[in-house]
């Protein structure tokens, strides 16, 4: 127990240091230039944070899920895009680590990821599926010399150009149904990426997520034996929602901190008087508390379910509803907090070059309800609610 607590603490203090020393000073430039936060990711590599979740037997850090989530939150406080890149990488690592089921290629892959601190991006969305991650068009296609290929049109591939490896969802075979999916990991040098759209978005600009046509030739062992629908419901969906929510909470927390700093500065100018903005700050605190409570309780529930033998509850519809709700609630609450902070700071928050600027925070969190669109999740929930009993 104490070994794992020590590991978690060492990991978190390292990530917090990287957040302060690398993510914070570069956040404005990353945002302004829509460029990849390479200083932060390199510093995380130095700390071996990219393999933090991988088990020590495979050369990783053996850090707990809760610590990874806290790491996303800490990075989010300093640079939303850096936190998003880190979170997306961890989602892939956790998905592979929890479902490799002894597959030798994937064990070797995680060793390699730990040794070389390889960054993994995902090619999950696809043109023509309407944003449904549970369906694919592109398929694993066998060649006549024992290898496999695919070609997939992806509307967004976050940091695809900067990643070392790609995790791709595909139909199992050319004659498989759209929902009969598998997960494939390919090295970048096995793949070709042709960029087909630009990247000049409102927020999360440093994630560098234009569209690509991705193709690759790879060995059949690079197809994860566990079917993707299982990976998706047991790990990828809840882990995504929890890690994203944590980083949105981190961004909102920094926006709140800036609003508080603004109110303190105002109070110092007129000692003895409570500045009008202090009242707004009080309102804002309760909004932030709601966000924090939702993220914290969903995360605790997930950890609890994962500790149960067989993790049966992870595949139940009621559980899917639980984590879908987290995503909807957190993605709506985080920009609300950032906008509230803007209301506290006024013009000083609206300007991009003051200590109280919260424009980047607001823009970054506005991506939250679009990344896996909330309306799509509501459609899923509406269907699940017809049959789920105790939600």
């Amino acid at each position, binding site marked *: 127990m104490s070994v794992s607590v020590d590991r978690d603490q060492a990991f978190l203090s390292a990530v917090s240091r990287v957040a302060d020393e690398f993510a914070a000073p570069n956040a404005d430039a990353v945002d302004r230039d829509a460029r990849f936060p390479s200083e932060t990711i390199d510093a995380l590599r130095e700390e071996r944070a990219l393999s933090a979740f991988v088990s020590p037997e495979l050369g990783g850090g053996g850090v707990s899920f809760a610590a990874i989530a806290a790491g996303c939150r800490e990075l989010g406080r300093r640079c939303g895009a850096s936190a998003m890149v880190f979170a997306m990488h961890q989602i892939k690592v956790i998905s592979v680590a929890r479902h490799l089921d002894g597959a030798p290629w994937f064990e070797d892959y995680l060793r390699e990821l730990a040794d070389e601190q390889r960054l993994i991006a995902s090619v999950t969305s696809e043109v023509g599926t309407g944003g449904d991650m549970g369906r694919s068009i592109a398929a694993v296609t066998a060649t006549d010399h024992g290898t496999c290929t695919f070609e997939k049109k992806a509307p967004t591939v976050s940091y695809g150009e900067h990643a070392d490896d790609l995790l791709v969802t595909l139909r199992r075979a050319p004659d498989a*149904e759209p929902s009969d999916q598998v997960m494939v990991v390919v090295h970048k040098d096995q793949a070709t990426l042709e960029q087909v759209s630009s990247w000049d978005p409102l927020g999360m600009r440093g994630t560098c997520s234009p569209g690509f046509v991705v193709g690759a030739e790879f060995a059949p062992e690079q197809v994860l034996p566990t079917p993707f629908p299982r990976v998706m419901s047991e790990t990828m969906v809840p882990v995504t929602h929890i890690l994203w929510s944590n980083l949105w909470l981190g961004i909102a927390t920094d926006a709140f901190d800036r609003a508080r700093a603004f109110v303190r500065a105002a109070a110092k100018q007129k000692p003895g008087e409570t500045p009008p903005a202090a009242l707004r700050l009080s309102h804002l605190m309760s909004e932030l508390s709601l966000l924090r409570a939702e993220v914290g309780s969903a995360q605790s529930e997930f950890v609890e379910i994962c500790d149960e033998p067989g993790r049966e509850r992870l595949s139940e519809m*009621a559980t899917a509803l639980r984590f879908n709700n987290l995503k909807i609630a957190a993605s709506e609450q985080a920009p609300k907090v950032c906008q509230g902070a803007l209301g506290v700071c006024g013009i000083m928050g609206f300007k991009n070059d003051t200590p109280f600027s919260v424009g980047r925070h607001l823009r970054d969190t506005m991506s939250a309800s679009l990344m896996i669109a909330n309306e799509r999740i509501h459609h899923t929930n509406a*269907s699940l609610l017809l*049959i789920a*009993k105790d939600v």
Partner: protein
Amino acid sequence: MTEEIRQIIADHGRLSVDAAGLAPDADLYHAGMTSHASVNVMLALEDHFDVEFPDRMLKRSVFESISAIEAALNELRAETPVS
């Protein structure tokens, strides 16, 4: 019971293949049943067999084949005291 289940799947499962030719252990999701269609299958099963699937049964594996559905229904019926 197998044939009743098969009929419900034919009516509500929106499979891309003919349900009449499905083996009892054939994977319904591989046969084209979507998550949304599976909810309609569950509702129809509850209605037809006058049962309620508890949350612990509401998961992919319980509805992935005719035989899995049959096992779940038998388990539910065994639990329900005959009045």
